[in-house]
């Protein structure tokens, strides 16, 4: 923990390292900002009701670095609209000063320098402080805490306890409802077991029994808060059985099922709801489209695509709120409800600066308790990185470059494939890479690193297929990940084209030769959704690689060329 004074001194010291130009104005801005817990949390209250939203925590109990993307393309109608605005354009759009705390929290601009100055973000003990303070300020009976899912997966401890650590921690925060996505990768029985432990609702309007085609989960729930009736409809990630292993949850079917949402909106209205909220894991563009097609939803608390936006996007009178990921942010939405109607709001995307916000002592000790059995392993140092390691970006991230390099070398492959996940934390140049850091990038229940032969044609089909999941012009066909990361092979992509026409110029980097559709290539990858995939877990592959190459230094990845 830093005191405020120490924090400012650390920031000033870092700015001195930056040299001229940017650094000067940045250190000045830093001083002007005079960051404090009060400043981070204060907000002019509005109305009686407050929604608190947190989503995509990905099991990050401790403060982390998480670099936001520098490239996040929007296709068709949403090109250039939030969240498809990054870096300097983002700062301009929201009038954020370069080098300011918000600039650090929300963009990748000057990331390393700002991260060194501002420190890590998140930590569930800090999140607990924020939530407790909101409850104290607004009154327990006036606050609804909603968790958008992707809460139980993403760390070593969550994987090894099959989600138990997160359930224990979240239960102590007393949310009112949650929905899910990666939760389902623990398989039907475990998911059921964990849900039984929840003292709150797990909502999923779009989860059906696959055999009988009937709703399998509680779709929505009515709450009384702030003197109003608030209906919360849950929407799990619609493509869970496609993007993740279907064989782990054979009895459940998902889908967008917007007609069901419309039906529940009607039911909620009939039961006298003053406010209707969709707690969604659809992804931003899917929710934007849904808001334009389904009337009567007052607020969509969106998740899945990990976007953090400082203001709501308003579509068809619906406020769409994007609260970021990894515990970096907590959203507070104050709502003024008059005569059964939403008549005003105030919103704050609260950035959780871990050096500024005081950890909640009870939560801190609970976190220590759940981690204690694994502390020795978690802190084990595997190597060190000279490069910034991060994952977010449409086409590649340096952590995936490292994983691909490990796959190529450890599995003796010509080409490596690594899924375009959006979870996984960042490491700054000069940091040790611990066992925990590595597992933050790959902890999952289907980690086998396969090695198989694939023809050039199959590789092309895969790139086209994933490209269409990301860049289909209709958001309802998007699955919300990024492009599969490729090692050992380069390609050109034109996102605006149709499936089958986006990918060209596939080249084997080792020889510079064009990929031959008819030839078989040795391909190594991980996280196959197919049952019975064989191979060592990916974390062993990467750990072996780091042990042999203990200082990670990655060249600029120029293997993907953007066309169009």
């Amino acid at each position: 923990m830093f005191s405020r004074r120490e924090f400012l001194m650390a920031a000033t010291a870092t700015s001195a390292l930056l040299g001229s130009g940017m650094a000067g104005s940045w250190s000045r801005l830093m001083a002007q900002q005079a960051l404090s817990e009060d400043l981070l949390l204060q907000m002019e209250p509005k109305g009686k009701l407050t929604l608190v939203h947190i989503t995509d925590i990905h099991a990050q109990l401790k403060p982390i670095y998480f670099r936001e993307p520098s490239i996040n393309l929007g296709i068709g109608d949403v090109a250039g609209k939030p969240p498809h605005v990054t870096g300097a354009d983002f700062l301009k759009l929201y009038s954020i000063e370069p080098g300011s705390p918000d600039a650090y929290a929300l963009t990748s601009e000057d990331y390393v320098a700002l991260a060194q100055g501002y420190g890590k973000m998140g930590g569930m003990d800090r999140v607990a402080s924020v939530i407790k303070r909101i409850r104290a300020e607004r009154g327990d009976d006036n606050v609804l805490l909603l968790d958008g899912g992707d809460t139980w997966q993403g760390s070593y401890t969550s994987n090894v306890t099959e989600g138990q650590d997160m359930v224990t921690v979240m239960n102590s925060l007393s949310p009112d409802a949650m929905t899910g996505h990666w939760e389902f990768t623990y398989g039907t029985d475990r998911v059921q077991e964990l849900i039984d432990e929840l003292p709150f609702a797990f909502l999923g309007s779009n989860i059906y029994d696959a055999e009988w085609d009937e709703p399998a989960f509680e779709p929505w729930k009515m709450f009384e808060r702030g003197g109003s009736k608030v209906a919360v409809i849950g929407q799990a990630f619609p493509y869970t059985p496609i993007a993740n292993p279907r064989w782990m949850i054979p009895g459940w079917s998902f889908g967008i099922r917007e007609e069901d949402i419309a039906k529940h909106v009607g039911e909620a209205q009939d039961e006298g709801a003053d406010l209707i909220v969709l707690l969604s894991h659809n992804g931003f563009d899917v929710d934007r489209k849904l808001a334009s097609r389904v009337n009567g939803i007052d607020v969509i608390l969106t998740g899945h695509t990990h976007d953090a936006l400082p203001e709501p996007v308003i579509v068809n009178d619906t406020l769409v709120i994007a609260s970021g990921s990894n515990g970096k942010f907590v959203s507070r939405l104050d709502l003024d409800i008059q005569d059964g109607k939403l008549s005003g709001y105030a919103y704050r995307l609260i950035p959780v600066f871990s050096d500024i916000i005081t950890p909640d002592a009870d939560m801190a000790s609970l976190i220590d308790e759940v981690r204690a059995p694994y502390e020795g392993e978690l802190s084990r140092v595997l190597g060190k990185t000279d490069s910034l390691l991060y994952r977010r970006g449409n086409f590649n991230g340096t952590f995936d470059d490292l994983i691909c390099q490990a796959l190529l070398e450890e599995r003796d492959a010509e080409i490596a494939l690594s899924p375009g996940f959006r979870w996984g934390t960042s490491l700054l140049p000069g940091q040790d890479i611990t066992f925990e850091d590595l597992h933050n990038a790959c902890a999952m229940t289907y980690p086998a690193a396969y090695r198989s032969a694939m023809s050039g044609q199959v590789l092309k089909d895969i790139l086209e297929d994933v490209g269409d999941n990301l860049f289909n012009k209709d958001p309802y066909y998007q699955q919300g990940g990024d492009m599969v990361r490729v090692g050992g092979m380069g390609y050109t992509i034109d996102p605006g084209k149709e499936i089958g026409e986006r990918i060209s110029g596939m080249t084997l980097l080792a020889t510079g030769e064009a990929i031959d559709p008819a030839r078989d290539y040795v391909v190594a990858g991980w996280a196959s959704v197919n049952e019975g995939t064989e191979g060592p877990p990916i974390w062993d592959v990467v750990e072996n690689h780091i042990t042999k190459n203990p200082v990670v230094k990655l060249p600029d990845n120029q293997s993907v060329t953007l066309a169009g």
Partner: protein
Amino acid sequence: MTFTRRQVFGLTAGAAAFVAVAPRISFAATDDTEAAIKAFTGGAEPATGTVTLDTPEIAENGNTVPVGVSVESPMTADNYVESVLILAEGNPSPAVATFHFTAMSGAAEAKTRIRLAKTQNVIAVAKMNDGSTFIDRKEVKVTIGGCGG
């Protein structure tokens, strides 16, 4: 990504077969689809509306895709849905099913599961007792999957 060796080989073979014969199949299937619609409507161009197909945007399993169809109708002796034809435009043989109704059916609704070889349009054509016909068309995507999140 997502391939076991066995499944990769399966896919490779499938892709090769598809590439080799795709033009013939797709023309044949589109022609077959148009012909089947014409035969069902007696040559008339069906109107849109009234009939609604319920399909997933993306199939979770192309081997068994749930498809529902419903037709707005009072279902009285004077005004009822006679039959509904379901077609899968991109399958080698597009005809999937024909559901027959009477006024006694109460509602013109049906559900089934169909196999889709690849991304394609699924089509429902409804015929009323007065001979008028209606059509709905939805694209269902069949993907390799596995890289979301």
